[in-house]
């Protein structure tokens, strides 16, 4: 399944909603995110399975033993292909011998097959796996091919979720090509496209959170939507900031939120978009904080 929408549209929140029903069924929920400034092959896939292996290492010795045997059956003699990319797997399987050198086409097919077998070891009816690959707009070509391989595999116990920003993926993007090839092979991928909140939605949200009257809420909703484009993350952030600034206050006697006239809220510099405002704050940080953020970025 694909979940699409611009940044802040709530893709992660939608996906997280699957988490609880799944853990109730003793399934695994694993996730990895591709990154804009760290383009390495399979980064999100590696992160997801690394987390899974770490979780499994806490299981009983008996289960680990069974898992070790299952992995040996599924991967032998090509286990090294997996441990070279996801070294943590070695913690279960032990070191793997080098693989035979093959021609180019065979190499591609072999990796596809070995990876599918690898996933099948974990994704079983008694413990299904949800694999979330987030920010596919930054995925490398090899990861997309791997995804296509998993999607064309008849697999009852694996739910592959892909999330990406459709507004950052155009006709020339590798993801578009991958999805087109998948469709050619008869693969269909249901999608959920997340749209911005409408003024009505935000109006409802403000009434529910603040207990304001319909008229009071309408004016604020209109202002919020104009300044956020209805992006849920920004709506939340804007309201939070207004509360922090004291422009919106909780009136204990009346038992509801109140705010002064909208002119004041507007005058607090909301003519710029929310993000521009935040980026500008970066420049005002002191050196130590800024250098730390730069290193983290």
């Amino acid at each position, binding site marked *: 399944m694909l979940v699409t929408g611009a940044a802040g549209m709530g893709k992660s929140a939608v996906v997280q909603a699957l988490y609880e029903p799944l853990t109730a069924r003793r399934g695994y929920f694993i996730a990895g995110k591709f990154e804009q400034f760290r383009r*390495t092959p399979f980064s999100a896939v*590696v992160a997801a399975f690394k987390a899974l292996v770490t979780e499994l290492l806490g299981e009983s010795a008996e289960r680990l033993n069974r898992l070790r045997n299952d992995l040996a059956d599924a991967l032998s003699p090509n286990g090294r292909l997996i441990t070279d990319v996801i070294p943590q797997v070695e913690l279960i399987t032990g070191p793997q011998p080098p693989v035979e050198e093959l021609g180019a086409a065979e190499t591609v097919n072999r990796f596809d097959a070995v990876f599918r077998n690898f996933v099948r070891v974990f994704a079983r009816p008694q413990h299904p796996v949800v694999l979330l690959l987030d920010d596919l707009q930054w995925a490398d070509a*090899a990861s997309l091919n791997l995804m296509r391989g998993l999607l064309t595999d008849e697999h009852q116990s694996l739910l592959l979720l892909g999330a990406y920003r459709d507004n950052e993926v155009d006709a020339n993007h590798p993801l578009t090509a991958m999805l087109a090839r998948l469709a050619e092979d008869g693969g269909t991928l249901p999608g959920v496209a997340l749209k911005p909140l409408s003024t009505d939605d935000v109006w409802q949200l403000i009434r529910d959170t603040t207990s304001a009257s319909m008229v009071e809420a309408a004016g604020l909703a209109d202002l919020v939507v104009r300044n956020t484009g209805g992006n849920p993350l920004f709506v939340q952030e804007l309201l939070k900031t207004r509360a922090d600034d004291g422009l919106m206050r909780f009136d204990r006697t009346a038992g509801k939120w109140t705010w002064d006239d909208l002119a004041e809220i507007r005058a607090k510099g909301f003519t710029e978009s929310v993000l521009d405002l*935040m980026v500008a704050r*970066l420049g005002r940080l002191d050196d130590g904080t*800024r250098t730390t953020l730069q290193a983290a970025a």
Partner: protein
Amino acid sequence: MAVVAALRDTSSEELWAQLLPAVQDGLIVAASERSAECSFFHDRIQQAAYESLEPQQRSRTHLAIGRLLREAEDTDPFEVVFQLNQGRALIEDPAERLQLSERNLEAGRKATASAANVAAMGYFDIGLELLPEEPWSACYDLTLGLHRSAGETAWVLADLDRSDALVAAAVANAETALEKR
């Protein structure tokens, strides 16, 4: 955050104190108070922070991260090479350059085996770039390995001219009849 603390040479307490203004400003979000898990509020904030570094300073930061991760266990195998490569222009020690060239050959071979040929070509190219002068006499095995692997991968990627040139260089410099084949 552990990497950032090591990089900034501060304790986690000091790091948290430095981050606090950014948390209060809403630029980054901490999983919980004093948490070691922080994320940028939005990619555009991360992008702005990243791009506010001068290119030279950016390379230096990548290099420092790469050198830190090189010593650490449990890192994504391609990540160390990626970080070091981003800062490779600043590596002056010939031995360290040679070692990074080897790492690129190794990463490229892993990438080839896992069908990541575009990425593999990138590693081989950087490996070749990092070779010293007169590479065939200075480090024969590494030079041959890089030419061979790069030549094969260029062929897979249908860059036939490049492939021919690499293979021709390998043949011209190969020492034994077996390697010339």
